[in-house]
């Protein structure tokens, strides 16, 4: 269904305008191209010395020169007109029905529904294509590299405003069918909007070089009918309530390690590797690391605040206290790091304040 030679089938008004504008521009350029090179090739074939052509000696003709300056200007004006209208409508992010904040992380997207139906929902969206497929150890699936664990879900026909920011470096949120591409700038807020006319699943990528796994941070948007959307919202809010853990619960070491292993796989393994060996020197090993084996306060600080000037992000605001406690406990008890220490969520909360 997806064209492999042209822009993807548009499902918003802006994307449709872009699609048509591109077609129009291409045709205009093609016409000029054929005209100019028609003349050139005619001359290439006929005004050859081997055909007995004798060189004329004309040059400079003010009328001709004015014509080929003015006519292009007029053509350009014709092109600029529709483009201007579309630019203005693309920039109009006022009066949205739903506002979602999307945050770019190296290398995943965090979503936060901040206004409208679904307010309060938040989750992190990771690519779900398994490494085995990427490394060629398993057959590649249909949506290879374009699939995520937690897609963005929005209702059809509603104006959705996306607020963009980033946590570390610049990323860009791009879904071609929606006609939306907007950079996410760390420390700044940018916005964009779309109103999807058709239910369906629309896929895109991070479109700004953001480091090692830039090619592996897809975006998946599910556009649902109003009813299904409400059902999804209810479902999410239910889950949110159910998984709200008691922050003061005392966890057993085994529980923390088990949970931590999952958190590690989703957030840390891309750099530090599943075997904890890292990819030195850019991504240091955790296995045998003096910080991981040393004073836990130091490790908590690094994990929560990140390391300036490196790819090590500040996870303090990205993960829950429980997840942080679990993953730190995991690293302190995995591989050759057998400290036997358990870090409790409460300690993380304490460190936060």
């Amino acid at each position, binding site marked *: 269904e997806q064209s492999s030679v042209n822009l993807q089938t548009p499902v918003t008004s802006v994307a449709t305008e872009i699609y048509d504008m591109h077609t129009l521009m291409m045709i205009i350029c093609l016409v000029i191209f054929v005209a100019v090179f028609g003349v050139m090739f005619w001359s290439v074939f006929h005004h050859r010395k081997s055909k007995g052509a004798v060189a004329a000696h004309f040059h400079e003709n003010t009328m001709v020169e004015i014509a080929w300056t003015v006519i292009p200007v007029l053509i350009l004006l014709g092109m600029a007109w529709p*483009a201007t209208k579309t630019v203005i409508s693309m920039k109009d992010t006022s009066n949205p029905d739903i506002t979602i904040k999307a945050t770019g992380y190296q290398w995943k997207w965090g979503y936060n529904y901040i206004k409208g139906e679904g307010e309060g929902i938040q989750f992190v969206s990771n690519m779900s294509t398994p490494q085995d497929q990427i490394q060629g150890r398993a057959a590649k699936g249909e949506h290879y590299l374009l699939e995520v664990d937690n897609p963005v879900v929005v209702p059809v026909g509603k104006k959705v405003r996306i607020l963009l920011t980033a946590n570390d470096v610049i990323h860009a949120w791009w879904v071609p069918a929606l006609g939306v591409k907007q950079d996410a700038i760390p420390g700044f807020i940018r916005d964009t909007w779309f109103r999807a006319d058709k239910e369906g699943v629309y896929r895109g990528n991070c479109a700004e070089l953001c480091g090692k796994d830039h090619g592996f941070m897809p975006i998946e948007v599910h556009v649902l009918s109003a009813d299904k959307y409400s059902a999804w919202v209810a479902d999410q809010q239910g889950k949110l309530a159910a998984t709200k853990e008691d922050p003061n619960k005392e966890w057993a070491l085994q529980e923390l390690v088990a949970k931590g292993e999952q958190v590690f796989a989703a957030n840390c393994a891309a750099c530090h590797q599943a075997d904890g060996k890292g990819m030195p020197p850019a991504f240091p090993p955790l296995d045998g690391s003096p910080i991981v084996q040393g004073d836990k306060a130091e490790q908590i600080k690094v994990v929560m605040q990140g390391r300036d000037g490196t790819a090590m992000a500040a996870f303090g605001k990205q993960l829950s206290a429980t997840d942080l406690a679990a993953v730190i406990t995991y690293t302190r008890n995995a591989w050759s790091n057998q400290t036997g220490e358990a870090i409790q969520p409460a300690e993380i909360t304490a460190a936060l304040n």
Partner: protein
Amino acid sequence: MSAVTPDQVHDDHHHHGPTGLMRWITTTNHKDIGTMYLIFSFIMFLSGGVMALTIRAELFQPGMQIVQPEFFNQLTTMHGLVMVFGAIMPAFVGFANWMLPLMIGASDMAFARMNNWSFWLLPVAAILLIGSFFVPGGATAAGWTLYAPLSVQMGMGMDLTIFAVHIMGISSIMGAINIVVTVLNMRAPGMTMMKMPLFCWTWLITAYLLIAVMPVLAGAVTMILTDRHFGTSFFNAAGGGDPVLYQHVFWFFGHPEVYIMILPAFGIVSEIIPTFARKPLFGYASMVYATASIAILSFVVWAHHMFTTGMPAATQLFFMYATMLIAVPTGVKVFNWVATMWRGSMTFETPMLWATGFIFVFTMGGFTGLICAIAPIDIQVQDTYYVVAHFHYVLVAGSLFALFAGAYYWLPKWTGVMYSEFIGKLHFWCSIIFFNITFFPMHFLGLAGMPRRIPDYALQFADFNALASIGAFGFGLSQLIFIVAVVKCVRGDGKKAAASPWEDAQGLEWTVPSPAPHHTFEIPPVVK
């Protein structure tokens, strides 16, 4: 200061300077220096090409096969930097060195000693740049644009790149000043500005662009350096800076930079077309004005690389309109070339083939540029292979093809030997066919949604990527033909070239013997 002693006061040049390697290291001769520039840039082209082929090999099919993602990004970054700063720019400077004094009837460049230094800084920069692959953490992987804050995150390879850029900048500025002064001050009697060959004009204007923007690039990378090591916050929001600020500074340099890489190409083509059409250039004056207009406009279009950063609508519109306007003077050039060919008496020796190919394929790149200039469309194609296709059409089929055109045109003058037409034509036809096989499919890839700078891609992009990769290897192999053509000339294997090997070539360079003697125009010719 010591007493004033005239060093050596020679009235003639029949002394013997250093020989062997020292000749090349210490030379103050514009032809020697031009040759070194050309050889250096070709080596850089091969190095950048090997990186490109590694990229294409990894992208031959989906999945990761050959390199790690981090290394892939290093390759992309270094490929861009090496090609832009190592291959294309120095190659044009090499042409300028060889040809400007010959074209305007000067005995040498205005500052012959500084000219030597301009060249010998480049190998230094290349050592730092390419050496960065071998330091801990590898080369910088932030893209040739070195966007902050990603570049602030990089390892010491980034610092090496920063210093390499500084050194290349010093080299370019000195080179540009040398060219400006040579053109303004060393023309033979009677060689008025409006009689100069167009190549001199385009290089004069290019040199101004270089003087104006290289310092700005130096400023940009200096700020990255201090953000990395001295705690400044230029590109860090927490300290009140802005990552987008880097992009503004970079592209204020970057956009004029792309015209730095194309204006001398326009100049070369404007020399070749009239020669082989046996007819004067249709509109000399309008070509000069068009070149100047492109240069001036190039300072007010930079943010067309930043349409997705989220600028206010008015800003977007301004940069969109300004960018579109550049199509007008560029069109004037294309129309001029076509009008020059019209009713000429054309022959298609190798230089003319390349020049004709240049006009054809470059214009395609120009049109895709125009499509990128339309902000809403750019929102879709920005950072996709559409842009990769656009700029390879203007850089490879534009700058590089014009360089080949010029190389074949002046090879007889440089070596005194005619290249083999068969080899030259083979080189051209292989290049233009494989070029299009490589880069034409990238338009489709980009439109259909394949981002650039990714080591792996979704399955629907597999076919065109395989095709592009095959094309790239074919294109790469085709370049070996050029080596054969040049080596044959250098070894004297071929017909001896007359002072003017072309039937209807105008210009002073054709009045001196081929190969051009070491010293020419010590007594300036008089131009009527």
